C-alpha cells in the first residue's frame, strides 16, 4: 500500500467524518452529559447528579409515556411486518397488476410526514371526516367517533397511520425476498402435494426468515426515530393520551424548557436505539461478515 494513498484516503473522507462527528456524535455526547447535570431554566448548575432521572421517574406522565411508546413501537412493528408480509406475498405474484402496484405502493413512503399527517387528520376528523361519516351512514356505528379525541382510541389511530406510512417498504423488501425463493423448491413441494398455505409455511417462510428478522428490527428503528407524524397529528394529546417518548422530548425541551427531564428522556431513547441497533448488527452479522471479506 502506498503511503500517499493512505493520506489521500483520509483527506477524502475527512469532511464526511468531521460532519458526522460534529452533528451526530457530538450532540449525542452532549445530551448524555446534560442528563447528568443539574439544569435550572437553561442554566447548568453542577455536573454529576442523577436528579434528572429521578425527576423523570417521579413524573406522573412518565408511566403513560412508556406505555404509549410500547404500543407505538411494538404494535407498529408487529402490524407493519404482518401486513407487510401479506401484501409482500401478494406483490410477489407475477402479473401486470402487481408489477404496477410495486411502483405505486411506495407513494406513502416518499410523501413528507407532514403531508401524511394532514391527510389522515382530515379523513379522521371528528365531525366531517370521511371515515367517521362512512361508518355512521353504513350503520356500523351510532353517531360519529372522535378518533383523535378519544384517549382510548387515539394511540391506535396513530399506529394505523404509521402502518400506512411504513408498511409499503416492508412489503417491498419481503416481496423481493419471496421472489428470490428458488422456483424448484416451490415446484418440488407442489409435486409432493403441498397446497398453497403449506408451500408458503414450509418453503417460502424458511427461505425468507433472514429478511423477515432483519426487516422487523429495521422497522423498530424507523418507528423509534419517528417524530413528525405523531407530533402533527396529536401533539401528544388529548391530555397526554398519545404522548410518546419522541413527542415528550420535544414538548419538555421546547415548550416547557425542562431541559433536565428532556435530556434524561433523550438518553433513555438513545439507550433503546443502541439496543435495537445492537440487535440489528447481531441479526445482520452474516452480511457484515460477507461485506468485510469482499
Amino acid at each position: 500500500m502506498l503511503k500517499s494513498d493512505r493520506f489521500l484516503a483520509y483527506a477524502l473522507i475527512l469532511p464526511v467524518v468531521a460532519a458526522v462527528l460534529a452533528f451526530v456524535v457530538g450532540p449525542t455526547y452532549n445530551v448524555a452529559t446534560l442528563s447528568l447535570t443539574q439544569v435550572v431554566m437553561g442554566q447548568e448548575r453542577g455536573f454529576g447528579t442523577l436528579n434528572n432521572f429521578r425527576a423523570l421517574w417521579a413524573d406522573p406522565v412518565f408511566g403513560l409515556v412508556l406505555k404509549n411508546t410500547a404500543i407505538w413501537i411494538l404494535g407498529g412493528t408487529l402490524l407493519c411486518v404482518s401486513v407487510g408480509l401479506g401484501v409482500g406475498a401478494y406483490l410477489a405474484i407475477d402479473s401486470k397488476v402487481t408489477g404496477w402496484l410495486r411502483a405505486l405502493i411506495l407513494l406513502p413512503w416518499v410523501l413528507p410526514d407532514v403531508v401524511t399527517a394532514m391527510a389522515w387528520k382530515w379523513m379522521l376528523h371528528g365531525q366531517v371526516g370521511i371515515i367517521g361519516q362512512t361508518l355512521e351512514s353504513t350503520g356500523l356505528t351510532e353517531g360519529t367517533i372522535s378518533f383523535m379525541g378519544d384517549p382510548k382510541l387515539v394511540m391506535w389511530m396513530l399506529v394505523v397511520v404509521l402502518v400506512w406510512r411504513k408498511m409499503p417498504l416492508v412489503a417491498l423488501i419481503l416481496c423481493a425476498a419471496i421472489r428470490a425463493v428458488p422456483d424448484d423448491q416451490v415446484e418440488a413441494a407442489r409435486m409432493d402435494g403441498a397446497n398453497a398455505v403449506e408451500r408458503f409455511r414450509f418453503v417460502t417462510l424458511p427461505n425468507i426468515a433472514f429478511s423477515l428478522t432483519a426487516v422487523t428490527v429495521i422497522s423498530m428503528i424507523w418507528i423509534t426515530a419517528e417524530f413528525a407524524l405523531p407530533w402533527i397529528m396529536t401533539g401528544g394529546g388529548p391530555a397526554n393520551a398519545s404522548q410518546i417518548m419522541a413527542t415528550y422530548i420535544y414538548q419538555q425541551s421546547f415548550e416547557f424548557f425542562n431541559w433536565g427531564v428532556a435530556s434524561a428522556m433523550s438518553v433513555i431513547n438513545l439507550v433503546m436505539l443502541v439496543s435495537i441497533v445492537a440487535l440489528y448488527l447481531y441479526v445482520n452479522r452474516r452480511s457484515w461478515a460477507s461485506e468485510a471479506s469482499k
Partner: protein
Amino acid sequence: MNEQPRTLNWIMLGLIGLVISIYVLFPVFWLFLASFKTQPELAQLPISFWPEAPTLEAYKALFSPTHQKGQLLDWPQLIGNSFFIAVSSTIIVLIFGTLAGYAFARLNFPGRDLILGGLLISRMFQGAALLLPTYRLMSMLGLQDSLIGLVLLYSAFGLPFATWIIASSLREIPRELEESAMMDGASRLQSMVMVVLPLATPALITAAMWHFVGAWSEFAFASILLESNEHKTVTIGLASFVELFTLEFQYVGAAATIVALPIMLIFLFGQRYFTRGLLAGAVKG
C-alpha cells in the same frame, strides 16, 4: 387446472390490487380534492365527494399577500427557502459523498470498513433524542434561525448514506478502466472525473434524489431551529395550519399539494433510481 378457477383467481388478484391502490392513493387524493372545495362545502353533511364548484381560491389565497398579514406565512418565500436548503445541501452531499465514496471504494486504509460501518450506524440516531443537543449546538455556533445552519445539518445527516451508495456503485466499476487511463498519463483526479464518474451517474442521481426528498420533507429540526417567519420552510408552513384552522382544510389541501408536488414529480420521473436507493437504504438501515 380448468378454466373457471383460473378466471376467478385473476378476478381475486385484480380485486386485491384495487383495494391496495385505493388504500395507498385515497388519503392523499382526498386531501387534494379538499383544496378545490369551498369552506361551506367542507363543513356540510352529507359529504360531497367531488367539489361542487371547483375553485382555485385556496391556492390564490396562499399566494396572495393580503391573506398573509399576521396569520398566514408567505408561501413563495417558504418555497424559496425549502428549495435553497434542499438544493444546496444536495450539492454539498454529492461533492463530499463522491470524494469519500471514492476513498471507501478504491483506496485501502486502516479502519476503512469500521469507519464506513460507523457512518451508516450514525444514521439511526438522527431522531428525537438529538433535538435538544442540536438546538444547543446551533445556538452556540450562532446558527439557529439560519438557513445555512440547516444546510450544514442536513448535509451532515445525509452524507453517510450518499457516501455508502456512491461507494457501492464505484466498487462495481472495473478498476482496469481507471488504471488504463492512468497508464495513458491521466492523474488520479483526472481519471476519476473523466472515466469513473460518468459511469457512476445512476448512483449520483439516486443519492441526489434521496437527499433532496429528505431535505425538502424534513420537519423536526427545521421547526426547532427556524424562528423568524422569513426563514421558515414549507413543512413548517403546512404544519402551522394545525394551530390556525378550524375547518379550513381547503388551505391545508392546497398547501399539502404544494409540499407534495416536487416529491411526486421526482417519484414519477425517477422511479427507477428511487427504488434502487430505497431497497439499498433499507438493507443498511
